[in-house]
């Protein structure tokens, strides 16, 4: 087995600043108030993901999921510990970041693909597939500023999903598309899984994690609370309540 994500004793510290201007800081210091506070968004987390594994990352809001994902994606760097990845990373994380409102969908598509690391030739090869996957028709020539949030998301996904990658990250993202599009995305993600790429999936939806993943990691206030089997993990989180499951399917949150 080849490891694809290695996380060793990773800690990420954030500084909360209560005051930012010169006047505020001096006033607070004079009164003896604290002007900043440090806390660990990710606290001494270690795990290894093997190639081809599908791992779900769960946890309550503010437990550090996004921070961890940003570190794996390379946006942030750990303050302590080491985080290593193997191969190219892509995914449904921050889809549509950097869309320019005044440029057309087409121009944004090209730019977005380049931002995600596609080269000129790779893009030319996949351009038609991306356009077809987005299914936006003539809207593609209109400025992105006129798009609905769903249409924007479609364009973003269509690009992201076509990037060659060895590690595929997915943040809770499929909530905005309509049903046919969501199904298309699920099919594509299953395809990715079947092709032996590593899948790292962040979600609150127990049902979709159960469907997509074979291992789950649970973060609790920045610490790794659980690492193991999916069903046991969902029990651990108390996400196995009966109401929960139903509304999950009903709303079809993501996946």
């Amino acid at each position, binding site marked *: 087995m080849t490891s694809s994500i290695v996380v060793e004793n990773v800690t990420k510290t954030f500084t909360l600043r209560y005051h930012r201007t010169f006047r505020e800081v001096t006033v607070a210091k004079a009164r003896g108030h604290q002007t900043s506070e440090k806390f660990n968004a990710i606290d001494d987390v270690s795990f290894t993901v093997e190639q081809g594994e599908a791992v779900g990352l769960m946890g309550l809001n503010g437990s550090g999921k996004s921070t961890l994902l940003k570190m794996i994606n390379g946006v942030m*760097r750990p303050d302590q510990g080491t985080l290593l990845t*193997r*191969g190219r990373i892509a995914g449904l994380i921050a889809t549509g970041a950097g869309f320019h409102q005044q440029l057309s969908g087409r121009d944004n598509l090209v730019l977005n693909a380049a931002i995600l690391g596609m080269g*000129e030739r790779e893009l030319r090869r996949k351009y038609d597939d991306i356009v077809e996957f987005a299914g936006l028709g003539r809207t593609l020539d209109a400025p992105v500023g006129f798009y609905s949030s769903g249409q924007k998301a479609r364009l973003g996904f269509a690009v992201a999903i076509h990037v060659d990658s060895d590690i595929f990250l997915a943040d809770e993202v499929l909530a905005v598309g309509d049903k046919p599009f969501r199904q298309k995305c699920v099919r594509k993600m299953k395809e990715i899984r079947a092709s032996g790429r590593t899948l790292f999936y962040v979600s609150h939806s127990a049902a979709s994690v159960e469907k997509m993943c074979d291992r789950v990691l649970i973060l609790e206030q920045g610490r790794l609370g659980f690492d193991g089997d999916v069903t046991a993990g969902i029990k651990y989180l108390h996400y196995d309540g009966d109401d929960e499951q139903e509304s999950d399917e009903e709303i079809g949150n993501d996946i």
Partner: protein
Amino acid sequence: MSEVDERPAYDSLPLKPPSADNGLLAVFQRRYLLRLLVQREISARYQGSFLGLLWSYINPMTQFFIYWFVFGIIFNTHKSVPNFAIHLFAGLIIVHFFTESFSSGTQSIVRNKALVVKQAMPREMFPVSAVLVSFYHVLPQMLILLVACGLSGWRPDAVGMVAFVLALVIIIFIGTGCALLFSAANVFFRDFGNIVNVFNHFVRYGVTMMFPWAYVQERLGDHAGLFLLNPLADAVLLFQRAFWVGTASPEERAKIVMPDHLMLHGVAVLGISLLFLVVGQLVFSRLENKIPERL
């Protein structure tokens, strides 16, 4: 996935930090993205405005006419400086290139916040593309200058062309260095955006644009050398050496005063500006870690 076949075996790929591959060199490895970012910036900057790209000429042209009127006519610089308009315009091109690189470069990271906090890419990309956009605006101004020089009987010479290249490269280095330093600093304290405006004001008067070098030497005497410590002043003089000096008739040329060893100065300043760029990059790399969480 048919593409997978063309790529190396997974086991042969190295395990490495996902945030690696940063720095100015990485920016130029991803030229395709850089080109698209520059294009986006150019086409988006003037979208929705009727005059469009013309605005990037209106601004320097109005400055040109104001200076030309106040310094040329009112202060009567025309008399002592042959082809004062060319002297002025050559200076203005360099000054404008620098101030525009500096101010748009400083805002570049904050303005592209959406991308910076979500995507892993060399963040130097943004200051660098700001400088390139400014450079793009220099080209038509150069054309105007060349036409004006042609009409005034310009005779290009080899030394002048070296001076021209030196001037541009100095500005590119210093402009990129400043853009790197200030774009990162601006994330932590937005005050830096305001400092830039103050600084740019000094730049306009700290170079030989509205007045010739002869005045500086006359008024400052032995201390005139201090004026040349400003690398921008050297760049402007080199640029004027390339274009303005060549337009003077032989008898006028005898009267033109330029600093001694200007070319030697130029080479030294080039080295210093390269050093400055390296420092800018080092500071940027230090601050970069904290950028996404402070935006």
